[in-house]
C-alpha cells in the first residue's frame, strides 16, 4: 500500500500540476482540440486503438465483477455450510445419513413453524451439451424444499418447483440460452433415467444460476449416492455462526467442518482467477501497444508542428506551457478513445457467459456487468495511457532549442 502510494505520488503530483496548468496557463485548449481534429485520420486511428484496449479492459473488469456478483450474492452471513473436514467444496464432501440426522436437529439451528431451518443436499456434476456443440460439466444439486426457502434470492419464473419422487428438475432461466437441452417441458437424461424440466428459476445473478436443481433423494437414488454432500443451515444471527461452528467441530459424533456461507462463496470466487489473469495479460500487452500508438501519434504531431512550437516560444510562451499543452493534447486523444471504449463495452452488458471453475470442475454461469464505476475506471485508464504516451513527445516539444524550432526542426 505504502509502496503503491510512493510509486503513484509523482504521477499524481504531475497530474495535479497538469490540472492546475489547464486553468493557469494561457495556451487555449481549443488549440489542441483543433490540432487533433486537423489530423483526423491519425487522431481517429489512435483513438480507435485506445477504445479497443479500454473496451477490453472494461470487459475484463466486468468478468471479474460478474463472477464476484455471482458468488458474493449467493451467500448469507447468518447461514453456514457443513462439510466433511478439509473438503473445501461441496463436490468433494460427503456426510453419512446418520450424521445428517444428528445435524438436522442441532439445537443451535434457527427454527420456524416447520422446524429447524436446514437442508441436506447432494451435489453431482453431469456433462451437458452446449449450444456451440461442445459439452461442459454442470452442477446438479439435489435439495430439500427447505433448501429453496434458505435461498430467498431464488424465485420461480416459469412452471413449478420439482416434486419429490417424480424425477423432476428446475433449471436456471439464464442457462437456457447456452444449453438448448434445458428448455421447459423437455426431458433430460441423467443417472440412467429421464428427468422432466418442470420449471425455470432466476437467482438474481447468484451462482445458483449455474445449477440444475431437483429433489435430494431423487438425485441420490439416480446417482447411487449413499451420503449427502453438505448441509445448509440458518442460524439465529450472523454472530451465532461461530458458536455453531465450534459446537459441530467439537462434537465427536460429527467430526464435520462448518464454514460461513459468505466465506465459502468468497473461496469459490477464485474460479474466476484464471480468466482474470488471462484477461489482465491481454490487457497489459494491448495497453503497451496503445501507449506506443499514442506516443507515435504525438511524436508525429510534434514533428509536424515544430515551427509552430518555435513561434509560440518566440511569442513568449514558456517551455512548461508547451509541455502542458502537448500533454493535454495526448490526454484528450486518449480520453476520446477511453470514452468510446467504455461506451462500446456497454454492448457486452448483460451478456450471459460461463467459465469452468477449477475448484468444482463445473460450469459457472454469470453475466457481464458493465457498471458506471467500471466505465469510469476505463476512462481513468485511458487518462493514464494519455499521460504515459504523451509525456515523452510533450517533453520533446518543450525542449526543442528555440532557434532549431523556428527553422522547423
Amino acid at each position, binding site marked *: 500500500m505504502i509502496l503503491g502510494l510512493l510509486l503513484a505520488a509523482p504521477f499524481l503530483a504531475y497530474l495535479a500540476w497538469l490540472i492546475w496548468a489547464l486553468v493557469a496557463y*494561457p*495556451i*487555449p485548449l*481549443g*488549440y489542441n482540440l*483543433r*490540432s487533433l*481534429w*486537423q489530423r483526423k485520420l491519425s487522431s481517429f486511428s489512435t483513438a480507435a486503438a485506445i477504445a479497443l484496449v479500454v473496451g477490453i479492459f472494461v470487459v475484463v473488469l466486468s468478468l471479474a465483477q460478474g463472477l464476484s456478483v455471482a458468488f458474493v450474492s449467493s451467500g448469507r452471513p447468518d447461514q453456514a455450510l457443513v462439510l466433511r473436514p478439509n473438503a473445501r467444496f461441496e463436490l468433494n464432501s460427503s456426510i453419512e445419513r446418520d450424521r445428517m440426522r444428528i445435524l438436522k436437529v442441532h439445537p443451535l439451528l434457527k427454527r420456524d413453524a416447520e422446524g429447524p431451518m436446514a437442508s441436506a443436499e447432494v451435489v453431482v456434476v453431469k456433462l451437458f451439451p452446449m449450444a456451440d456443440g461442445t459439452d461442459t460439466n454442470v452442477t446438479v444439486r439435489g435439495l430439500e424444499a427447505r433448501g429453496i426457502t434458505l435461498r430467498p434470492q431464488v424465485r420461480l419464473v416459469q412452471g413449478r418447483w420439482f416434486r419429490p419422487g417424480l424425477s423432476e428438475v428446475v433449471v436456471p432461466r439464464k442457462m437456457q440460452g447456452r444449453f438448448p437441452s434445458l428448455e421447459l417441458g423437455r426431458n433430460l437424461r441423467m443417472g440412467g433415467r429421464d428427468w422432466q424440466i418442470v420449471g425455470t428459476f432466476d437467482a438474481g445473478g447468484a451462482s445458483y444460476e449455474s445449477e440444475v436443481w431437483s429433489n435430494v433423494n431423487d438425485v441420490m437414488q439416480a446417482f447411487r449416492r449413499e451420503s449427502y454432500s453438505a448441509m445448509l443451515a440458518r442460524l439465529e444471527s450472523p454472530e451465532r455462526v461461530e458458536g455453531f461452528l465450534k459446537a459441530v467441530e467439537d462434537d465427536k459424533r460429527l467430526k464435520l467442518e462448518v464454514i460461513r456461507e459468505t466465506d465459502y462463496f468468497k473461496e469459490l470466487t477464485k474460479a474466476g482467477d484464471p480468466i482474470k489473469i488471462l484477461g489482465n495479460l491481454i490487457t497489459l500487452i494491448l495497453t503497451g501497444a496503445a501507449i506506443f500508438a499514442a506516443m507515435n501519434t504525438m511524436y508525429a504531431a510534434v514533428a509536424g508542428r515544430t*515551427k*509552430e512550437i*518555435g*513561434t*509560440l*516560444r*518566440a*511569442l*513568449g*510562451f*514558456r*517551455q512548461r506551457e508547451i509541455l502542458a499543452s502537448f500533454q493535454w493534447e495526448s490526454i484528450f486523444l486518449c480520453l476520446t478513445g477511453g470514452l468510446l471504449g467504455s461506451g462500446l463495452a456497454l454492448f457486452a452488458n448483460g451478456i450471459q457467459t460461463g467459465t469452468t471453475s477449477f475448484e468444482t470442475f463445473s460450469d459457472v454461469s454469470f453475466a457481464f456487468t458493465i457498471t458506471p464505476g467500471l466505465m469510469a475506471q476505463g476512462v481513468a485508464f485511458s487518462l493514464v495511457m494519455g499521460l504515459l504516451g504523451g509525456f515523452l513527445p510533450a517533453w520533446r516539444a518543450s525542449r526543442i532549442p*528555440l*532557434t532549431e524550432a*523556428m527553422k522547423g526542426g
Partner: protein
Amino acid sequence: MNTDRFDLGGGEPIITLRDVAKSYWREALEIPVLQGIDLEIPVGAYIALMGPSGSGKTTLLNLVAGIDRPTGGSLEVCGHELNSLDDDQLAAWRNAHVGFIFQNYNLVPVLNAFENVELPLLLTGAGRGERRDRVEEALALVNLTDRMGNYPRQLSGGQEQRVAIARAIVTDPDLLVADEPTGALDAKNAEEVLALMERLNSEFQKTIVMVTHDPKAAHHAKHQIHLEKGVLDKAVEVNR
C-alpha cells in the same frame, strides 16, 4: 569594430551590442558566425540588415530578439541586459518588448486571424474585453477587420503576412524584428507589407530591424547595415 562607423542617427539607444560574438560547434569544431559586433541602434530606427548568405544576419537578428544567446560580449535591448535573463525571463521579455514578423508568416493554422493575433495577449494578463479591443485595433491597422474569423488557409499570402504584423504589434512592443518579411510575397503584396512597416516606424515610432536580401525591401529602411563573414561591414543611410 568601432561604433563611430555606424552612425544611425543618434538618440537614445534601444539596442546596444558590445563585442558580441556567436559561434556554433560541430563536434569539436568551433564555427564562428558573428565576431566583435559593436552596435548601437537608436529608438525609432528602421534598419535593414543585409549581406550574403552565411554572413550572420539572421543570427544577429535572433540575438537582438532574445531568441538566441551570444557566446561572447553583452547585449542590452529595450533596457534589459539579455545575458542576465534566464529562459523564463527572456520569454516574458520577448512577449513584452518584441514583435516578430517571419518570412513564412508562422501563423498557427488551426487558429483564425483573431485568435492568432490574440495569442501574445494571452500572456499579458489582459482581460477578454481588453484583448478583443486590442486585437480589433491591430487588425484594423492592417486593414483586415473583415477577415477576423478567417483561418490562415482562407487568406492570401499578403493577408497572412498582415495578420502576422497585427500579431507583432498587438502588445505594442518597442521593437519589431522581421526576417525576410517579403521573401514569400509577390511584388504587389510585398510593397503593401513594406508600406505598412514603414508606417509603423514613422507613425508609431516602432524600432524595426529587418533582415533582407531584397534591395527594394532594404530601400524602405532608414539605414542599411551590411554584414560580411560575421562582422559589420558598413552602414548606409537610405535616401528615400
